């Protein structure tokens, strides 16, 4: 008889605990979700969805651009690959990411083809215009189409220059614009140390 009571008690305690954790985790989950960075659905060149959680213990270095851009974008990405080869030879710390803000023309296979020209593997991402708008806005970047004639397929896109460093918890900082790989590498190292020293107490309040 005692055994049965104990078992029932154990089950009750177990239920109470699981309901409790469910509510607590749900509470945190909502806080997470309030951050639009986690909500925005981006996908990679294979069509798989990607979120900043996929970064795991790496720091993402994000560049917003479009493959139609033959001058500023390749120059910036090229500087980034050279800088990373120097400061992160074994590719353990950083993940270079190119996010196309021109999903209308930049289909996954076009982004894949564009990124194949670089020496380093760069993760290519894009999304719907809505997801991109929310992601860029929440990270502190922006873009807009420069298109007078809606029929014009050769339109240009104005976009934020430079890079953003971000971790899997959404803590992020812009990397000041540098036009050569050496200065860019130094800026990355500096921003990394600032971000690391901030990321612990910012863990649950990733908007700043």
């Amino acid at each position, binding site marked *: 008889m005692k055994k049965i009571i104990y078992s029932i008690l154990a089950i009750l305690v177990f239920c109470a605990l699981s309901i409790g954790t469910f509510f607590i985790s749900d509470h945190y989950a909502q806080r997470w979700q309030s951050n639009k960075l986690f909500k925005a659905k981006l996908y990679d060149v294979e069509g798989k969805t990607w979120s900043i959680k996929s970064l795991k213990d790496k720091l993402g270095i994000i560049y917003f651009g479009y*493959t*139609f*851009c*033959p*001058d*500023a974008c*390749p*120059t910036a990405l*090229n500087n980034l*690959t*050279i800088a990373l080869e120097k400061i992160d030879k074994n590719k353990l710390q950083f993940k270079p990411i190119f996010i196309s803000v021109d999903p209308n*023309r930049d289909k996954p*296979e*076009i982004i894949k*083809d*564009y990124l*194949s*020209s*670089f*020496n380093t593997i760069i993760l290519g991402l894009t999304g719907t215009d809505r997801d991109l708008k929310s992601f860029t806005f929440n990270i502190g970047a*922006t873009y807009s189409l*420069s298109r007078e004639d809606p029929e014009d397929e*050769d339109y*240009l896109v*104005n*976009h*934020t*220059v*430079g890079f953003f460093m971000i971790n899997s918890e959404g803590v992020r900082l812009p990397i000041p*614009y540098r*036009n050569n790989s050496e200065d860019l590498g130094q800026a990355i190292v500096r921003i990394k140390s600032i971000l690391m020293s901030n990321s612990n107490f910012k863990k649950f309040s990733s908007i700043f």
Partner: protein
Amino acid sequence: MIQNQLLSINILILIAMACVYTTSDIDAKSYTYKKVRASNPWARATSKLAKTGVVYITSIHNTGERAVKIIGFSTNIANKVQLHKTVTENNITKMQYIKSLKIGPGKSIHIKPGGLHIMLMGLKRPLKENNQFPLIIKFETLGNLETMVNVKNFSWRQKKPLKHKHMHH
């Protein structure tokens, strides 16, 4: 004795190689028409599916005593060619279409990465490394300067050109 001879032959070969490198560098890449000279027009190689490309010209020099004005470009490799300028304002980068560009007497302009660029839109085929294609620079009243553009590898940090550069010093 034989060693000495071998050594001098080696040196001669090296000198000859250096000459070939430097002359090909200067001769093959400079184009003159009347009072204007375009030096080293080059394009970045593109990936297979690219719809745009870019041409840079190390310098366009006006040796005359009157200003000249670039009013356009033409090429058979793309549907549209425009002179653009990459400008950054308030942290936003954009490309501006430059309709015409004046070069004063004795002055030069430089069309290089991150600034002015000749944008090729509607590429008819991808630009492959070591290929060439014609590009005409149109000047107001003066006429057309015909050039050939060399397609270079995307990244300008390859092993070979570094060695090549050393030959000049």
